[in-house]
């Protein structure tokens, strides 16, 4: 068993492997995917993968594990909605919805893997909701290359609707952070035309998107920004920033923060009795869980914006949509606390998907994209009064209207008209 035999074996093995490789290559690339089907008739040639006369397969990707697993509650609301529609309404236009949830742990490479699993292995009709900005951005490239709808992305970044020509298969849903910034700007221009504004923002895309929406909108008006401070998500406290902002003597504070820092900013503002600006806090940090630790009595008259009915707000107690949501969540997802806004968000976005699927002209992937890009004043469940979905083939932002609200007593009170940021302010 000298080196010679060894070498001979090696050569033989290599030759065998090479022959096998060549033989395999000679067979050529693989044929068309067995599960890919296309429509006949008026919608001829369009993709019908994952949709039949009786069913629609949808897939969603959420962080069920990892540091952002709080968002993993949202698909429970979605599931409850689809279960309700399947059981009590026979599905959407007779098609039962089969909704599969996958976990990506908020890691973009994992999101791509899960998207491929849903599309290539489970042959879903569309990706309904991928949660998060970096994760959805990772999936966007794949979905558009593969021509699979990535519908109603759950993230406030403005990139989902930014370029319908380059990314025709992706569309967002909730109002973008940038339109939220424009809403606050329009409010100030009307109510406090000479406002001097101090801005506190989180130094990432979320914070910068909202801030630039605001500053773009106030250009040429009497509203001016007199001070700006940013913080990092990793900062332990924002007290130094708040002290610097207080020194500016601004009469409005635009508070662009995530929940933990929202609480800190509200507390710092309440503690500083020498400075009493109008405190505008963004939607992300406007929930009761943020306000409560500061004390409701100390956050009176702060301003924010919303687009969904808050399930913990007693004023919607008699609302038909809210009652339906609470009843059916209790029935199809027993044990969940229906006042949790994650469940109602999931419910609301599933309702929007229901409306889009109900409007399909062609039961195809192309048809779905056509439907979501042709929404005309469509109201889905739990949207605030005066807010509806509107899109055109050129406008890829379904929701661009927000309602201002002011905190009074122990809850938010809506005030003024819903502000549509499409119209020039």
């Amino acid at each position, binding site marked *: *068993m000298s080196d010679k035999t*060894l070498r001979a*074996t*090696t050569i*033989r*093995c*290599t030759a*065998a*492997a090479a022959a*096998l*490789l060549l033989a*395999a*290559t000679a*067979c*050529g*690339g*693989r044929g068309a*995917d067995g599960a890919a089907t296309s429509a006949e008739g008026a919608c001829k040639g369009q993709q019908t993968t994952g949709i039949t006369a009786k069913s629609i397969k949808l897939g969603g990707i959420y962080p*069920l*594990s990892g540091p952002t697993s709080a968002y993993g509650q949202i698909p429970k609301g979605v599931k409850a909605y689809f279960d309700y529609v399947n059981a009590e309404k026979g599905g959407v236009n007779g098609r039962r919805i089969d909704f599969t949830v996958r*976990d990506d*742990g*908020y*890691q*973009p*490479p*994992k999101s*791509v*893997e899960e998207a*491929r*699993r849903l*599309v*290539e*292995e489970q042959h879903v009709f569309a990706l309904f909701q991928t949660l998060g*900005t*970096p*994760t959805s*951005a*990772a999936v*966007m*490239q*794949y979905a558009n*290359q593969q021509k699979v709808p990535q519908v109603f992305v759950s993230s406030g*970044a403005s*990139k989902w609707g930014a370029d319908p020509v380059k990314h025709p298969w992706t569309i967002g849903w909730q109002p973008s952070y940038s339109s939220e910034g424009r809403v606050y700007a329009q409010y100030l221009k009307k109510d406090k035309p000479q406002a001097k504004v101090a801005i506190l923002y989180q130094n*990432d*895309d979320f914070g910068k998107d909202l801030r630039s929406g605001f500053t773009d909108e106030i250009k040429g008006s009497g509203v001016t920004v007199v001070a700006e401070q940013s913080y*990092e998500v*990793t900062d332990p406290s924002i007290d130094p920033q708040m002290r610097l902002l207080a020194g500016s003597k601004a009469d409005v504070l635009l508070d662009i923060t995530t929940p933990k820092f929202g609480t800190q900013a509200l507390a710092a503002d309440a503690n500083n009795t020498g400075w009493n600006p109008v405190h505008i806090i963004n939607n992300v940090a406007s929930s009761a869980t943020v306000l409560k630790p500061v004390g409701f009595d100390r956050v009176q008259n702060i301003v924010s914006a919303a687009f969904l009915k808050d399930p913990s707000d007693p004023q919607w107690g008699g609302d038909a949509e809210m009652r339906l949501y609470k009843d059916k969540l209790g029935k199809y997802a027993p044990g969940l606390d229906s006042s949790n806004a994650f469940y109602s968000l999931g419910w609301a976005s599933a309702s929007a998907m229901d409306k889009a699927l109900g409007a399909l002209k062609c039961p195809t992937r192309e048809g779905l994209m056509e439907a979501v890009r042709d929404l005309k004043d469509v109201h889905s469940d739990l949207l605030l009064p005066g807010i509806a979905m509107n899109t055109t083939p050129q406008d890829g932002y379904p929701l661009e209207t927000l309602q201002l609200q002011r905190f009074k007593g122990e809850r938010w009170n809506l005030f003024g008209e819903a502000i549509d940021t499409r119209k020039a302010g």
Partner: protein
Amino acid sequence: MSSTPLSLKSSPASGGLARHWRWAALALLTAAACAAPFQLAPFRVFQLTMVLVYAMALLGLNLLVGHAGQISLGHGCFFALGSYAAAIMMDRWDVPYLLTLPAAMAVTFVLGFALGVPTLRLRGLYLALVTMTIAIFLVPLLKRFGSLTGGSMGLTLAHPEPPAWTGLARDQWLYLLALAIAAACGLVAWSLLRSRVGRALHALRDNESAAEVMGVRLARYKTLAFAWSAMFAGAAGAVNTWVIAFVSPDSFTVNLSIMLLAGIVVGGLGSTAGPLLGGAFVMFVPTFSQGLNEAAPNVVFGVLIIAVMYLAPTGLAGLAGRAGRFAAHIQRKK
């Protein structure tokens, strides 16, 4: 590789046979690896490509931890640097994707070398801590230079298209590319370990003082071990960029580094098959544990690691050897 000397010693006559078996197994594996993309669904091919990507990164980690005995909790950092180097070149300067591989390897080699220098004075846990700091530090750093790295939004790239003459689908082409690169990396690592470098690294791992007395230049081999291992991770990162076509800071958190270390330990430290088995572990087991229990995949994952370490303390690669010895033990008792 670790079990070979043992089996040779115990039965010199069967040594030749064992070696034949090894070549046969390797040939079989090669054939299977070459045939796989033509037999499997695109999604499975993609998964196998990712196994190869992780295996490449683990190859480097194996060199550093398994052979040179230097602990690194920051290996994901080099993986990220390779990914970003390739992504930035493709995105900003439209460099042909194949050229990004050597460039990413060069960048990570130099950076690995540079990082190897300050770690010369550190050992064991201290080294682990310093390397972990690098991994933690990387994410905010990537976010900071937004104009180059795309900030926290990351960079979205186009998938490389296979050349028309091959007639291959994109996933097949990427798989075969990854396979070729992984094989090349494996060959480089293998010849490296068979040379005086490998002997020096083993001496370094087993006893630093003794190695120094024998004339091994500690500083040189430690920094080189870091540089080589970073280079393999960089190659893996570049291929990762081609396959995923997206990079962002959230793709490369400290979790990745810990995952990689867990992968190589489970796969088999210092063994030849370790990186491949570890790659498969890193790729498949988290998904598998999600399938077992959707509510607590991390708990299942942790329990699986403990189970593997308990049943196979030398890693999955050593499992076959252990099973063989166990069988022999039973036979002798009879």
